[in-house]
Each structure stands twice: as C-alpha cells, then as structure tokens.
C-alpha cells in the first residue's frame, strides 16, 4: 500500500495511521536524534508530537509533494522548535559510528579519507564537527548524506528553493572540510 493510499485510509479509519507510523518510526527517530542530538526518550516525546501533528493535519497534505517529504518537514520543524525551547544542545552525541563513517565515505571523494582507519576516533571527531556546525549546514548534510534525500526533497522539507539547498550543501561540505583539517583529521588519511 502506498503512503497516499494509507493517508486516504486513515481519513476513513484512524487505525490505518498505525501503519504510517510504523513505516516511518525508525527513520524519523534517527532523523530527530541526528538533527537535535537529544537522548532517546526525548526523541520519543518529539516523535509523539510529530505523529499527532501529522494526524491532525492529514487533510492539509499537499499531494504535489512526496508524503515522506511532508512528514520529514513536520519532524524537522517540531524538532527545531523543541530544540529552541530547550535552548542548548546536550553534550552527549547521538550520531552513530556508522552515521559518521557513512558521511566520511560520501565526502571522501573530495576529501580523500581512508574510511577504514581508526573509525571510532574518526567518528567521534566527525560527530564533534557536525554538532559544531551552524544548524543550516548540519541539517542539509544530515538530510543529504544520512537520510539520503535528493535536492528536491530537501527543498520540500526545509522549504527552501532547490538552488539554495545546492549552495548550502556545497558550503556545508566546505565548512566540514575546513573543520576536519582543524581537528587533524587529515592526519588519519
């Protein structure tokens, strides 16, 4: 069953919403933790708010965009809103080592990392860089390289023109590279 069919079904019978939630639960939990760096329980609370908001606004879903982009947009906005309320981010890291390694691998064509080297240490440094980046940069990197969204999807999620998204990704990569050099990540190459 497609997302759209599930949405139509939910509007007739709310039980069908369970399958929408189940389909996106893991992905959205990861996304919330990645962009906010909150702990698991807080991420669960945010996700609950996100799902309730999605449920309430199902009739407002614009079918010109992908349903996944729409729910990622709501998750993004809700998480940022929660984050702003909490003011500061916790120091604990929630990027998994695999996340960091994935990011390195993707950026490595321009950065020339050897991904197999001391991955834990590299991962920690990458996490530190990601969370020290301005929000506008880290969210595009997370969406592009961890959530594997294309430019149009990122544009729909962040409500920015595609051209702006492309520029932000390039600047974020540049920022990442410079920060990586300062973290002596080049020594690991």
């Amino acid at each position: 069953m497609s997302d759209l069919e599930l949405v139509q079904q939910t509007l007739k019978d709310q039980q069908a919403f369970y399958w929408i939630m189940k389909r996106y639960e893991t992905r959205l939990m990861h996304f919330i933790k990645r962009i906010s760096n909150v702990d698991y329980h807080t991420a669960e609370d945010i996700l609950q708010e996100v799902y309730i908001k999605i449920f309430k606004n199902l009739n407002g879903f614009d079918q010109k965009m992908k349903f996944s982009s729409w729910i990622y947009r709501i998750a993004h906005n809700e998480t940022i809103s929660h984050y702003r309320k909490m003011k500061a981010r916790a120091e604990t890291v929630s990027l998994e080592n695999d996340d960091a390694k994935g990011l390195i691998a993707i950026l490595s064509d321009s950065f020339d990392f050897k991904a197999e080297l001391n991955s834990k240490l590299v991962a920690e440094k990458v996490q530190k860089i990601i969370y020290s980046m301005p929000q506008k940069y880290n969210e595009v990197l997370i969406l592009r390289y961890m959530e594997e969204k294309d430019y149009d999807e990122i544009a729909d999620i962040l409500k920015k023109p595609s051209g702006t998204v492309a520029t932000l990704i390039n600047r974020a990569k540049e920022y990442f590279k410079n920060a990586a050099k300062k973290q002596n990540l080049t020594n690991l190459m």
Partner: protein
Amino acid sequence: MKDLSQEILDTIKKEHIKPLPKWRFVLQKSFIWAMFVFCVLLGGLAFSSIIFHVNDVDLDVYSKFNSNFMEMALSVIPYFWVVLMCLFLFAAYYNFKHTDGGYKYGTTLILLASIVGSLLVGLLIYYVDFNEPLEENVMEHVPFYNMMMPPKAVIWNRPEMGFLTGTIKDFKNGQEFDLIGVAGDLWIVNYTEAKWQNGAIGIPGMRVKMLGVKDGENHFTASDIRPWFKLRTVQTVIQMQIPGNRGQKNSERNSQLVP
C-alpha cells in the same frame, strides 16, 4: 517490547484527536493567496500615486529652488507613497512565501514578480484617473500626510515671490477672477496675459497654481495658470471640479469655460 506507534495511536483514540477538516486548510490557503493579491493591488495603488506625484512636478518651477538635479529629485519624492509601496511589496513577498509552493522561488524572483504586478496595476489605476480623488481623501483622512509629502502648498503660496495658489471663486469682467487663497483670503487675479497650462481651464471651483506678479494688496497679475494637479483631459476637469454639472451636455458645459 514497547510499541511506540501503538502507544501514540492509543493516545489519539483516548484524547479523541481528529484530523482537522479540509475546509480549514482550503480557507487558510485561499486567505494567504487573497492577501498576496490584495498587497499587490495596494502596492499598485501606491505606485500609481508615485507616478501621479512625480508627473505632477513642475520641473521649470522646482528647478528655480534647487541648485542641482539631485537636490530637486530628493525634494519631489513622495516619501509617504514610496514607503507604503515598499511595505506592500514586502507584505506581498511574505504572503507568497507562505503559499504552498512559495518556498520554491527565490526572493529576487518573487519581489520582481510583485513589483511587475504592482507596476501594471499602478499604471492601470493612473490611467483611469483615480489618483486625484484618492489624493484628496488621503489628505483629508491621513494625519501628518502633508508632512511626509513634498511641500507643494508652501512652494506655491508665496505671492511676494510670484507664486500663488487657491480656488477660483468666480469670473468678474472677462479680465479678472476672484480667488480664495489657501489661508481663506480673497485675491483678485488678472488673467488677460496669462497662459493656461497643463489643461487648466477657468471654471469656478477649480484649484489652480499661478506664476505672476503681486501688484497690489491682494491683487495678482498672472502670467501662467496651471491646475493644482496636472490633468490630462478637459473632461477630467469638468468631472472633477463641477460635479453638479455632470448631467449637462458638453456644449452647455463648454460655454462656462474660460478661456
């Protein structure tokens, strides 16, 4: 094992949460589009007023008071309307950005489209002669409006320097007419040598501005008579100045006109 999705669904059921009705979203989206269109229209209105005021400037007179073009340009800018137009353009941009697909377009493109829209609407309003009644209404109802506009009345109310403005009261003997000055004072104006410029036609009730010489106590010999606002057609003069005569035939109206 905990099933988060089931817990959320239970919460939804327990708290009787329902999807908001579709009409609410339709209304919300329509309202944003309507506000965008409304702001473009108002921007057009402001733009038409800018054209109206800039076109109304008597360059030959203003150049006498200013030493260079920049100084003159700054003295004739209708700041009130320029500020208003910028506000409406920004509001149009803001509303468009909040439409469903508004975020897909860059700031420059949206602003450019809003400006072009306002420009077209402005030209339309200007050419249907809506600006003079608008101007009169705004002058009457907007506090401090005159302070935000070029000091036209001050410039044209200096009889000692050869500038006089007021409203024609009536014609006396084919050579003079009575004029009520801006301060309510009565002037006798000799117009035998005067050129009637910019569509000015002598009819009682018409507000005029004049160049000439003050040659006696409340007596002025005009060399140049212009309507207070530049008018494009005789028809406009008649409609604007003597509304009571609207039912008359053109030939009857024209028999009252001087020269």
